[in-house]
């Protein structure tokens, strides 16, 4: 299990490849469900040039840990990877990566979605968008 706040851009497929290469559950995990959230260049009708992602150091990691522990135990997961970007982000760059490994597909699918929904409501992160002519805080996440 690995949870990380990342200040630099990352390639989710490189991260997943590196993580699974070192995994001990190689021949037990029949299922892996992942989610990758990326920055779009368009939101709520406006072109977005760039974005700043703020977090609450210490609390963010702690809450992600609580979420991952709860979902893991509830669904009997073999492994979980959560990577979340902070700082200045450009369109096309990745914001979040969640990977869940389990013996069978139901637990992996359920867990990946549960972790994403919990992360989007309980892990302290805030987005500020730079539009062409002004800046704005994103007020609310879109419903899952």
């Amino acid at each position, binding site marked *: 299990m690995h949870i990380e706040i990342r200040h630099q851009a990352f390639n989710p497929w490189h991260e997943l490849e590196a993580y699974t290469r070192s995994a001990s559950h190689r021949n037990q995990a029949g299922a892996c469900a992942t989610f990758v959230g990326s920055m779009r260049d368009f939101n709520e009708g406006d072109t977005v040039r760039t974005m700043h992602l703020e977090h609450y150091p210490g609390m963010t990691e702690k809450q992600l840990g609580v979420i991952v522990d709860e979902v893991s135990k509830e669904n009997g997961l073999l492994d979980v990877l959560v990577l979340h970007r902070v700082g200045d982000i450009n369109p096309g760059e990745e*914001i979040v990566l969640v990977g869940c490994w389990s013996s069978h597909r139901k637990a992996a699918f359920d867990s990946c979605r549960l972790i994403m929904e919990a992360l989007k409501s309980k*892990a302290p992160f805030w987005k500020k968008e730079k539009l062409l002519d002004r800046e704005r805080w994103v007020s609310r996440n879109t419903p899952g």
Partner: protein
Amino acid sequence: MSVNARFFASLKERVGHGSVSVDVAEAACVRDVWYAVTGEGPGEEVLVAINKEYADFDAAVVDGDEVAFFPPITGG
């Protein structure tokens, strides 16, 4: 007693500080901390944490607590 009040994202801009030490009376609650800094009600949806755990405006605070205020989460 004294607590450390912290503000994030749009609330940091609204309040004008990221972090401020606040003197409050014994038996104070989170609402008292908020009022001591801002002098007004929260007005919009404000989330609260004490020592990095979620709490609410009625929760009691003790000397040395870190009391954080932030808007709804928009990560992921």
